[in-house]
């Protein structure tokens, strides 16, 4: 894996706990896409999957 360099996505708590240990870490302040609107997320997912095919 090489020297550990971490990106934390989600719970801020884990970022603080890694920082406290002296780990090299940055935090991504993740938010639910489309404001958490499930229909739009599903639509985006389908568009993305179709694009990959």
């Amino acid at each position: 894996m090489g020297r550990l360099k971490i990106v934390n996505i989600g719970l801020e708590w884990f970022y603080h706990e890694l920082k406290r240990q002296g780990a090299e870490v940055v935090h991504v302040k993740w938010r639910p896409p489309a404001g958490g609107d499930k229909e739009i997320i599903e639509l985006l997912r389908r568009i993305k999957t179709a694009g990959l095919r």
Partner: protein
Amino acid sequence: MPLKVKILKGEFRDSVVLMRISNRIKALDGVEESAVLMATDLNKQYLKEVGLYTPEIDAAGPNDLVIAVKGVNIDEALSAAMEALAGMREEAEAYYPTLSSALEEFKANLAVISVPGEYASMVAEEALSRGLNVFLFSSGVPVEEEVRLKRLAQERGLLLMGPDCGTAILDGYAIGFGNKVPRGDIGIVSAAGTGLQEVSTLIALMGGGISQAYGTGGRDLHEEVGGITMAQCIKLLAEDPQTKAIVLISKPPSKAALEKIVKETQRTSKPVIACFIGAKNVGDRIIYVETLEGAAIKALEAVGSGRVELLGLNREEYESLARLEYEKLSPGQRYIRGLYSGGTLAHEAIYLMEKHGFKVYSNIHPDTDYRLDNPWESKEHTIIDMGTEDFVLGRPHPMIDPTLRTRRIVQEASDSSVAVILLDVILGYGAHPDPAGEIARAVAEARKKAEAEKRYLAFVAHVCGTQQDPQNLDEQVRKLEKEGVIVMPSNVQAVKMSMLIARKGGIGGE
């Protein structure tokens, strides 16, 4: 009692951060009830139940933060909450809005992902496609998604630890929930989070150390997944020059997964020790042990270091300690109530008790005849895993938030048939800053309740941690012992002590 609600539109904060603020507000004078949370459907329901709901919350959504305070001192409490949030906002200025913006400036090689389950596979896939290894803490990912993501990782020469992966120790850093253990020559691969914590801390306690400890997620050895990640990790440890012995931890694996694992272990000459709690036949290549404690001992034997005698008491000491407790019990007190925050430790407790002829009910019992219909209520001998969905939906895991467990301790104390309350206390990064302190307060309250009904209650606990953990093992043990809790050096020994007390001496077998 006056109630005031403040809604902050678009102020998304995670549940642990909010719990920390919420606890601070609750402790203020004149606050009767309060909550600081995101306006998800589940949380709205909770606000209704505790009488903190107002019509203005109707329009709030999962990205809106609600502060609700009931009491005589609401304005001060509200401004305290706002202040705490502002402090965190400042800190948060250094945060990246997206994974791609973070990677432009920081060449990461591991993504630690703990987003809500429904988004987890989307975020994990993005990380994998950008060449990152993934530690996926989130749960609720469908098994077919897990297989797809694990295959994708494997094709790219990456690891996907998880989903529902609680612990890893990589290059000495604890990821998720993990303990500060010395670096050393024993490698671990675990499909069970607290299993990894127990084995790594017991190895540390006996003077050994850990090279790398990987988590695989709880389903890796199920039929559908077939041990993809465990096999990858065995290969990594086999090739790692620091690692001299390999420990595998899991619930009993499926046939397909076991075959894959055995095949992988045959490619290395390093000793392999497996604790597959409850499994019987694992083949000749692997040294099989029954318990997590056994795995730690065998691993140290395999590398020829460590001092096994540091772990525990002799038989006479055990029995006299147990006698002092059971002599104070009345004849009607017969049952053990195990309230666990660590799922693997709860499984181990069920396994050991059944082996000694105890009939055990549990919310995680593999046999549905012994599965509790209602996990909130115990029955005869009961072992509860308080980290299951019943207890953690919409609130942090009991290792972070002890509220439900401390309440349950007090609840069990009013049952006159209870002899022993058995507990695990898990230290380390990710965990509550003072779990033993919280438990000790609940023990004191429970004792008072039992004493009012002229009953004694025995408390037995195991503290899973090290001296180097932020909470400090010795200090935590002292807090429990001050309240008369018998603290044992491993989960196995805590369970055995509980059985001795409940049976009033002599548990047979050993």
